[in-house]
């Protein structure tokens, strides 16, 4: 019991928290990407493969050109390409979104293994650390938020920008509209399908950048399937976060914290060393089960505020096609 508690207390170490923030950047980018895409009504189920392939693209470009910054646009381009295939398949050809996404997941994963095999073990230059003058010296927050690197800052900025865009701008409201009730958006002169392509592509770009943030920053270099399962976790966190950028970001941090906790527990339970790291994902599922349970729902209905925090409904038109003749 005390082991559980000690491992928990260790989490509150400033260094640990700073690390949690640092390693969250790939998931933050990708989950914002998926949130945008799903808010517009398109489920990009390929994230896991898409992230992997763009992680490779980012790494290879950065490695070959010996410039880490070139890696990110390359990764974004791959993410966009995959996202556009999903969008084209479902919008234009009326294929099942989930099916296309799943096949692309499998294909991209294999493609990354195939194309990346000769790069295994190579080391590129990573994203250099960059402390922000002045702010870095704020106690606690300085170390956690301002002694990181540009990609981490950008990840945080992406979360804030996504939130601001979605809820405070005209275009952001339109983005929500096309995922909520496309025929109503259409009747207001909003080009639903064109915007769906656009936002799926934007989402894909962020997913790609998330992949590269892993191979060029969090864990430098290429190995077999380095970002394995990240995409699936992103998909779950988007549900968990109720399609709200800030809550999704909290979900990412919570997930990474749980992971850190699980790692802290290994010295206590050495025999579970292989099992503990995979616990957080089932735990999130458990959380989803609990807030979906009928009895819990009925109870939550009595506390609208709590309900709004713990559970929210998906965009109504998510995963459906929109066609007007």
């Amino acid at each position, binding site marked *: 019991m005390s082991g559980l508690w000690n491992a928990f207390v260790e989490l509150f170490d400033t260094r640990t928290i700073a690390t949690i923030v640092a390693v969250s950047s790939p998931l933050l980018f990708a989950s914002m990407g998926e949130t945008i895409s799903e808010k517009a009504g398109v489920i990009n189920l390929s994230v896991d493969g898409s992230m992997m392939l763009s992680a490779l693209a980012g790494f290879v470009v950065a490695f070959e050109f010996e410039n880490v910054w070139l890696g990110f646009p390359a990764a974004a381009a791959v993410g966009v390409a995959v996202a556009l295939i999903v969008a084209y398949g479902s919008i234009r050809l009326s294929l099942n979104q989930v099916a296309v996404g799943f096949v692309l997941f499998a294909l991209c994963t294999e493609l990354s293994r195939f194309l990346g095999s000769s790069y295994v073990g190579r080391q590129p230059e990573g994203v250099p650390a960059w402390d922000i003058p002045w702010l870095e010296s704020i106690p606690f927050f300085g170390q956690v938020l301002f002694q990181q690197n540009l990609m981490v800052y950008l990840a945080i900025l992406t979360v804030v920008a996504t939130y601001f865009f979605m809820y*405070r701008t005209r275009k952001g409201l*339109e983005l929500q509209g096309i995922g*909520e*009730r496309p025929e109503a958006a*259409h*009747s207001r*002169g909003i080009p639903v399908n064109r915007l769906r392509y656009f936002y799926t592509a934007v989402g894909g770009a962020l997913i790609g950048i998330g992949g590269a943030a892993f191979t060029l920053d969090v864990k430098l270099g290429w190995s077999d399937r380095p970002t394995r399962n990240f995409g699936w976790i992103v998909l779950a966190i988007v549900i968990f976060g109720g399609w709200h950028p800030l809550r999704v970001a909290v979900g990412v941090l919570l997930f990474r914290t749980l992971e850190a906790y699980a790692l802290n527990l290994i010295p206590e339970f050495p025999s579970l060393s292989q099992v503990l790291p995979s616990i957080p994902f089932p735990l999130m599922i458990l959380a989803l089960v609990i807030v979906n349970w009928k009895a819990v729902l009925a109870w939550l209905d009595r506390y609208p505020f709590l309900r709004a925090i713990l559970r929210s409904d998906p965009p109504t038109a998510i995963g459906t096609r929109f066609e007007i003749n």
Partner: protein
Amino acid sequence: MSLELLDIHKHFGPVRANDGITITVQEGSLHGLLGENGAGKSTLMKVLSGFHSADSGRIVLDGREIKLANPDDAIEAGIGMLHQDPLVFLPFSVIDNFVLGSPGSARLDRKKAARELSELCERYGFNISPDTPARLLTVGERQQLEIIRLLWLGARVLILDEPTTGISADQRAKLFETLKALATEGMSVIFVSHKLEEVADLCERVTVMTRGKVVGEAELPVPPEQLVEMMFGQSIEIHDRDSVPLGTSHLAFDSVRTATGLLSEEPISLDVQSGEVIGIAGMEGSGQDAFLRLCCGMRTPKEGTVSIGGKDMTGKHYRDYLAADVKYLPAGRLEEGLIEGLTITEHFVLTGEKQSFFVDWNAARERAVEQIEHYTIKGTEASTAESLSGGNQQRVLLAMLPPELTVLLMEHPTRGLDIESADWVWEQLLARRQQGTSILFASADLDELLRYSDRILVFFSGRVIGELDANNTNVEEIGMLIGGRRAPSSGSVSS
């Protein structure tokens, strides 16, 4: 603004929804567009508002031809449409609904928009608060929101598609008043309806459509018979209800109340006899749906008892009700009735009386062919549900009913059907009634309610506000009750 629609054609697959339509609307006038369900009115208006693009035809506004490739063009030209089902975003707030799609600065200024919304509300005497989620608004309020939004966007031609279905009598009076005021301000209003009286009440001119074509035009007022003749070819009269001797109790509610929401306030008591037809009236969402679901076990009451054929069924499962020959047919034929992708034969196998583990497809097909013939369904045994027209889907649904029925519960039995199919549906239902089946049906069509019911239950705001003897009431009285006002000289009977 004066407006001309010239030779508009629009088809959906084989359906010619608009088949060469020409209409002229004068500036500052209230123009009625009248026609049965399925006549093509909504399609025409969607073409005019850029929602659909026409296959061919021209639209001339103030003497200048305009091209409407999408709704943006129509908004630009000053044409705004209130759709039959108001196209609002239910989870969003009123103010977000108001600004969504409007031009302006990149950053949303909700405060400024809310001020403008309030001003417009005040001007037209509406009362909608900007922060309410739209899903909490009544249908009437959703319409008001849309109308104000369209005016705010600068609409000068306002289209209202069947705006009176689902709103209360009060709201309707208010709406008509507003429309008249707008017309005097120079606005052209196109008022779409399938109800004669409303068009006669409100409009100055009327165009009548049938089967995608214009069949008549008139300056109002004209005698109603003339309009009826235009709509139906000849005037119809309400034929006498043949009375069926009432028998035993088929469905009984004893002080039934649900736990929360609709129907939770006032307990309902009711006794429906064999062969009785009960009409259910009320605004959409006033509790009719919850009531029918209580009748078939899809919802369980918190208090009171429900019995079928004298047997207590309270708390039993839907399938137990089904076994007791209670059948429920909701309004959404392809959503809660038929199954997309399955053939007519497969539907009959699923609901057939004899169910064996292995399916004898040859026999099943033969039976399907027989049924198709017997119920004059336009389609083959291999047709999938979604390939059938609404009327034929309804025929399949009725053909799927078990031969013996104690209680039949139906929502909108004839909504969206052509007249021929609608008549046919009632023929079938009345035949069932002759066999002793009790029928409870919800409808928004007051004529239908009056014509076929023995008794009419009127729902308002989650309770039964009135129970009328259909032989002893009229459209006005039902209308008042639907709007929530108990009539002073109520002809209400309690059994």
